[in-house]
């Protein structure tokens, strides 16, 4: 199981690192973590990421999550104008036989939804931190971001989670 995961995650990490853009850089090398974790983002223990820029926070699922879920074939998203709450589900992804809840790392108002995911749900697999973003939120309690993990902490969290199984 560990060898299979290493092989699939390594291939995936190499794919992501080749496509990474200049303003988002991998925080750590392959030797530490087999999924890509990016600087400048905050992370939830349910494997969602947040990028806070000005008054808007963008949310998606991490490379670790998409790798473990498999090929995403359908995405369920809320409507703009609705609200999300920290730690609560706001949508779901379907990968082959499973629906998996996606939880919001922060509370706030949904201001934009990634409509491209309707036609191309696979963007979550190929570009989890960029084209595969899911919702944009106006945070209602910006201090919630402080309780999320930074890149180093999240990397360690993933390593410990994978090692425990």
């Amino acid at each position, binding site marked *: *199981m560990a060898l299979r995961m290493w092989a699939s995650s390594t291939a995936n990490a190499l794919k992501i690192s080749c496509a990474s853009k200049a303003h988002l850089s991998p925080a750590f090398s392959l030797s530490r973590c087999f999924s890509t974790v990016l600087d400048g983002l905050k992370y939830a223990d*349910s494997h969602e990421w947040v990028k806070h820029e000005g008054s808007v926070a963008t949310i998606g699922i991490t490379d670790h999550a998409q790798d*473990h*879920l*498999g090929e995403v*074939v*359908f995405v*369920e998203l809320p409507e703009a104008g609705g609200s999300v709450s920290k*730690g609560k*589900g706001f949508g*779901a992804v*379907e*990968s*082959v*036989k*499973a*629906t*998996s*809840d996606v*939880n919001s790392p922060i509370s706030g108002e949904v201001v934009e939804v990634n409509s491209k995911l309707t036609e191309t749900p696979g963007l979550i697999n190929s570009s989890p931190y960029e084209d595969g973003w899911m919702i944009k939120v106006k945070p209602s309690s910006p201090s919630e971001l402080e309780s999320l993990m930074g890149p180093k902490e999240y990397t360690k969290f993933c390593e410990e*989670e*994978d090692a*425990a*199984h």
Partner: protein
Amino acid sequence: MMNIMRFKGLPILQQLHIEEQLLRTSSDNWCIINDGTCDPTIVMGVSGKPAELLEIESVLRDQVPVIRRFTGGGTVIVDCGTIFVTFICNKEAVSDLQPYPRPIMSWSGLLYSKVFQGIGDFHLRENDYVFGNHKFGGNAQSITKSRWIHHTSFLWDFDVRNMSYLKLPKRAPAYRFARGHLDFICRMKDYMPRSTFIDKTVEAASTQFSLRSFELEEIETLSETESNPSTRLLSAEELEADVIAGR
């Protein structure tokens, strides 16, 4: 500890509502076994598009109920020959099991390999239970923050005529090789008596959990939160509208 509830002929819509409620509002582990459902019913996965998956004209003509369930996966037509087995677990219920689709699927394959030991070349193939390369069990899952459900419909027997309501799906496992329904699936009754399958499944579950029998009336007192299931029956208007939208 795992609570086990056994039904015979429970309507599949009611079964799915119970499962969705237990997944979202209970903190216990559950095994649900439903030995057949009363009326032939089509059950699609959460993202299923009726016009793509069903022969809508025949479905409407014969008034076959169509349900969209809360889990992923494909489309089945179920009836009294279908046996349903469901596991609903907390993330920590099975030690060393990561709560993701593939590990859960593998865990289920190991459990059923005990049930079918020495019988019919059983294995988990991609995401199906097969004898050789013929499918007799289809799986679907839903995973929340702290719990997961894995449920299976087993074809103990089926009516050939019912398969004509289903189109060949666009998304199919590689090992299907574009075979039609009747060349792809097989009947479990050719391999094992019905009651033996159920007994062996309970026995396999008991090797991993202490089982405690539960009656339906008992779960109605468990949940204080109102249940609002997403699993629902699709109306004839919705089915017709899907056909029009696809044109």
